[in-house]
């Protein structure tokens, strides 16, 4: 029996290991030896790299077209099975009640497999559960994270502005003229802070309206299931005149184009506002919808030429349908 620590005996088998040319016993010995031998580990990396080249030494044969879909379906099954495990979510939110939630997360319907993307929640679900989704769901978490981040940024920039302004105030008039660069910096900072505060106000308002009854239940929609997929939240006022859309994680629209919102009704689609996103992929869009905002059955966001379109293009980046 060979001792796994016997370097002289094991190292000649490294090439065989990298080519999968060892029997089970020899393979196990190599693996035990590798755990404690840095030299052999380094040499094996070189040999593995040499062996990997051989994968290119066969003529190319394309896999069948349906194989990718089968793999994605298997991954979806993985995701669903992992999501069926009970979750325990602890949420910390300042100035609001902080529920500790234990629930079995609903299985997500694969984007691909579903002919109608689940986007939001049916009106029959209790308001408390809606609030729970808002604050516990991915979009809700992002919303809260964003509020926290923006609040921190505003606080930091406010401090900088105060410090700059104080330093300018102590200067003589001549020095003030010479320090126009600093004054400009204050101005830029102030502008940036205003922008951030505007976003913060939008988000706080969005958080507020999703918790009161005069607005519809929030409907989420998505550009995919992965964590970084763009997302949207759409809420409509009970008057039907107004709807508000927040998007997050959306890449800037291609040059010469803008995003445009579409609401789907029975038998027709209605063009909504065009909009752009900021550098973080974020935007809040007010939609004026002349009295029928509560009747939509679906919504989407497309890429359109600057100025918008009367019919949606095929370039859909977010989509959802009320179920």
């Amino acid at each position: 029996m060979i001792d796994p620590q016997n370097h002289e005996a094991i190292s000649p088998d490294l090439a065989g290991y990298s080519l999968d040319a060892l029997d089970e016993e020899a393979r196990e010995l190599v693996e035990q030896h590798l755990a404690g031998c840095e030299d052999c580990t380094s040499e094996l990396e070189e040999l593995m790299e040499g062996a990997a080249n051989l994968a290119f030494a066969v003529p190319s044969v394309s896999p069948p077209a349906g194989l990718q879909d089968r793999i994605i379906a298997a991954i979806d099954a993985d995701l669903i099975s992992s999501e069926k495990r009970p979750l325990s979510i602890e949420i910390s939110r300042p100035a609001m009640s902080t529920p500790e939630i234990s629930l079995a997360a609903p299985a997500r319907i694969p984007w691909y497999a579903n002919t109608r993307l689940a986007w939001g929640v049916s009106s029959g679900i209790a308001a408390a559960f809606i609030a729970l989704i808002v604050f516990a769901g991915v979009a809700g978490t992002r919303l809260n994270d964003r509020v926290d981040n923006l609040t921190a940024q505003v606080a930091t920039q406010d401090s900088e502005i105060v410090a700059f302004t104080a330093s300018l105030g102590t200067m003589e008039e001549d020095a003030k003229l010479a320090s126009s660069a600093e004054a400009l910096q204050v101005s830029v900072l102030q502008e940036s802070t205003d922008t951030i505060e505007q976003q913060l106000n939008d988000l706080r308002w969005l958080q507020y309206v999703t918790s009161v009854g005069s607005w519809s239940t929030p409907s989420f929609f998505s550009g995919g299931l992965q964590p970084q997929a763009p997302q949207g939240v759409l809420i409509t006022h009970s008057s039907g005149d107004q709807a508000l859309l927040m998007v997050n994680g959306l890449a800037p629209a291609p040059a010469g184009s803008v995003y445009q919102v579409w609401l789907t009704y029975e038998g027709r689609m209605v063009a909504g506002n065009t909009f752009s996103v900021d550098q973080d992929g974020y935007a809040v869009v007010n939609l004026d919808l002349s009295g029928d905002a509560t009747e939509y059955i679906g919504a989407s966001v497309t890429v359109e030429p600057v100025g918008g379109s009367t019919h949606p293009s095929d370039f859909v980046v977010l989509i959802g349908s009320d179920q």
Partner: protein
Amino acid sequence: MSATVSLCGGHYDGPVAARIRPEQVAPRTYPLHEVARLEYIEFTDEALLAQIVEQDRLALECLYQRYSTRVFSLSYRMLSDQGASEEVTQDVFLNVWRRAASYKPGRGKFTTWLFGIAHHRTIDELRKRTRGKQRAAENVDDFLNLQSADILPADAAVANSEYATVRRALLNLPDAQRAVIEMSYFGGFTQAEIAIKLDQPLGTVKTRMRLGLKKLRVALASKLRAPEL
């Protein structure tokens, strides 16, 4: 209406999906959030793998588009069985999905890791099929002739391909070293089996494998390009 969109370092040349109609909401036919997908074109393999650790399915699709043909081709060449090769390819990419966190960037390239998984899985299948049976390539000369048959096609477009580059590097190895490498890697023979079939001492087979692989690595280190990003 059609469009050409470069996706994930691969190339998508399909029709743009049907226009949305209220009565026809079929997300699968839309160019699925191409904005996010386009971002991944610039991602390295390792960056995509990091996304997969975060359960980003789109990143796996991008890696699939980059490497599925290579994985499938390898398996098909070794097994000569379309169905089994599909199964192996599926297992390989599911392994990538499930084991992405186990990849250590400091321990070699992503492709080394990926093709290692692909080869190991194919060898398992090959040995399962031939366990207790006569090996299909019992005649060593026949096996080696088969490997040599697909060398350097005359087609100029293929002559500069990775395939031709690697075949050329293999041909430049001494025959004895090339034989043991091809028998083990493509034929699934263990080094002990090769020693018997070639009637050579086991130590000689091990040495030839080691020298051949090292030469191959050096010869190809600067020649194989990364997938087009």
